[in-house]
């Protein structure tokens, strides 16, 4: 939204050309300047600049919705608002399960079962909606190489023996879980940024990252001065990209 070109904000052609001579081509550049700078650059009066500012703002501002509309949208298909974890007490505490459209973080000391939980959630996501799943593919970003496909099949076979009664169904399920092994922060970030098209093409309904902390701790030593800023930079960029994906496609992450 911010990188929207000024041309598409319906400013006049000559104004756009004039601004591009000062290297102002996107809405972001325009809105970052102060009033005086804008007057100098556009050559227009104070009141006209105010009008221009409002016009450009309208091009990038988000749409308004009332809380009531949001509630109606959620209540239209209640099953799609959460992914049930099939652990009843956990579902009760979470008000239905892992929420779609936002980030959920799972933390624990090592060995408690985080990766097992992630594998189970992947199986659940591939189940059809009638059985409480999301009937979609799963993107699993593995940074610790802890994902075991055999364990996946074991869980699926023992948990839902009636559904996964044939090998074919098992293969179908495993085909829809896409595993990416990333070992550095940079590659994790690149992978997250490139996910948008994959989500649409593969009909992904769940993104799992296991785990964020391991790559970050490997690469950034917090005792060194500059690394703290870089680390938080990486984390916030990754977080905002994931939030965007979660909200845009209404899937749990």
């Amino acid at each position, binding site marked *: *939204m*911010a990188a929207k070109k000024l041309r598409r904000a319906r400013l006049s052609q000559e104004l756009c050309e004039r601004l591009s001579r000062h290297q102002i081509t996107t*809405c*972001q550049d325009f*809105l*970052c300047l*102060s009033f005086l700078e804008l*007057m*100098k650059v556009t*050559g*227009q*009066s*104070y*009141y*006209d600049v105010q009008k221009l*500012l*409002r016009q*450009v*703002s*309208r*091009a*990038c*501002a*988000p*749409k*308004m*919705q*009332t*809380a*009531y*509309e*949001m*509630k109606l949208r*959620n209540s239209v298909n209640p099953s799609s608002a959460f992914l049930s974890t099939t652990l009843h007490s956990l579902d009760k505490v979470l*008000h239905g399960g892992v*929420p779609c459209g*936002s980030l959920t973080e799972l933390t624990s000391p090592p060995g408690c079962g985080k990766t097992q939980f992630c594998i189970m959630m992947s199986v659940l996501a591939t189940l059809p909606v009638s059985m409480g799943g999301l009937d979609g593919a799963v993107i699993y970003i593995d940074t610790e190489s802890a994902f075991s496909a055999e364990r996946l099949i074991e869980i699926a076979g023992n948990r839902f023996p009636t559904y996964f009664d044939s090998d074919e169904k098992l293969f179908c399920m495993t085909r829809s879980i896409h595993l990416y092994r990333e070992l550095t922060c940079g590659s994790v970030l690149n992978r997250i940024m490139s996910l948008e098209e994959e989500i649409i093409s593969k009909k992904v309904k769940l993104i799992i990252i296991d785990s964020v902390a391991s790559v970050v701790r490997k690469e950034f030593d917090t005792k060194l001065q500059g690394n703290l800023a870089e680390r*938080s*930079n990486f984390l*916030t*960029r990754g977080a*905002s990209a994931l*939030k*965007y994906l*979660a*909200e845009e496609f209404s899937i749990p992450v």
Partner: protein
Amino acid sequence: MQREVGSLPLAPALRARLVAAGFQTAQDLLETGPCGLSKEIGISKEEALEVLQVVRQECHGDAARTAGASDATRKCTALELLEEEQAQGFIITFCSALDNILGGGVQLTKITEICGAPGVGKTQLCMQLAVDVQIPECFGGVAGEAVFIDTEGSFMVDRVVDIATACVQHCQLIAEAHQEEDHLKALETFSLESILSHIYYFRCRDYIELLAQVYLLPDFLSEHSKVRLVVVDGIAFPFRHDFEDLSLRTRLLNGLAQQLIIIANDHKAAVVLTNQMTTRIGQSQSTLVPALGESWGHAATVRLIFHWDNSQRLATLYKSPSQKEATIPYHITSHGFRDVQPPAVTQNAEDTEMNPRKRPRREEEK
């Protein structure tokens, strides 16, 4: 009348031409007239007319200012301000201890900043306030609408539904206890649907969308004149990452703060911002301080800091022009933001929600 041409709000190129043609004061311009102006400078007659209109507008403003007319300026006596402040409403938070240390609740026309570590309850309080601002006047509220600008995506509609249901139930209890006409009439319009439809939600993904939205807010508020609360949940989040140029960040934040102050004053609305915490590494220890730096600290009038103390949540009033510094404990229940119940009362766990602690406070207000 003796105003210099260089100080008029005209386009820079036009100003340069006027000065080059020898016009020094606004008086000179007005004497020449549009046709003469257009001939001398070489602009069209319509443009010359526009220039003169701008000049006249400015000069009228100046004259009114020098004559001391009080409606052209914002000048008024302290007595008038006192009367205004006393008549002003507060937005209650349903936590009486917090309302007490704030002097009645969140004040209108002021910017209140809430800082705290993640998970301590900032967004909960914002959602509570967005519901509380809509309480009708006969129950002690300001009967306004709310604008919620979300940058972090932590607004959960289901949670607002819970909070709003509890609020409506609370008001219904009061109405049953008092049985007054206007209470019952107000209750008819104060329902879950109406509460939710008067919360206007904007989701801003980055700082440019936030800036754009704040520029458009005055127009929005003029259309929806009943808005009494603007919440920006997460003002720090879009500014903390991907910002290499710190001076640009400071400038944008200051501009944002000024815009919000203007909005708060013009529309008699309360502005609530939530901020994150960052670690300041000192010589021997590190402390948690509000993010966005020292210069941002001047933007908010009232600053609340939420923190933990061994699993008890505490709220500290850190900066306020009229109240003294104090710390109180608070609780987040399934009904929203509430007081901590004193140990003696928690023995009967079933009716802690309908606790008489809340009702007497209401009755005192009548």
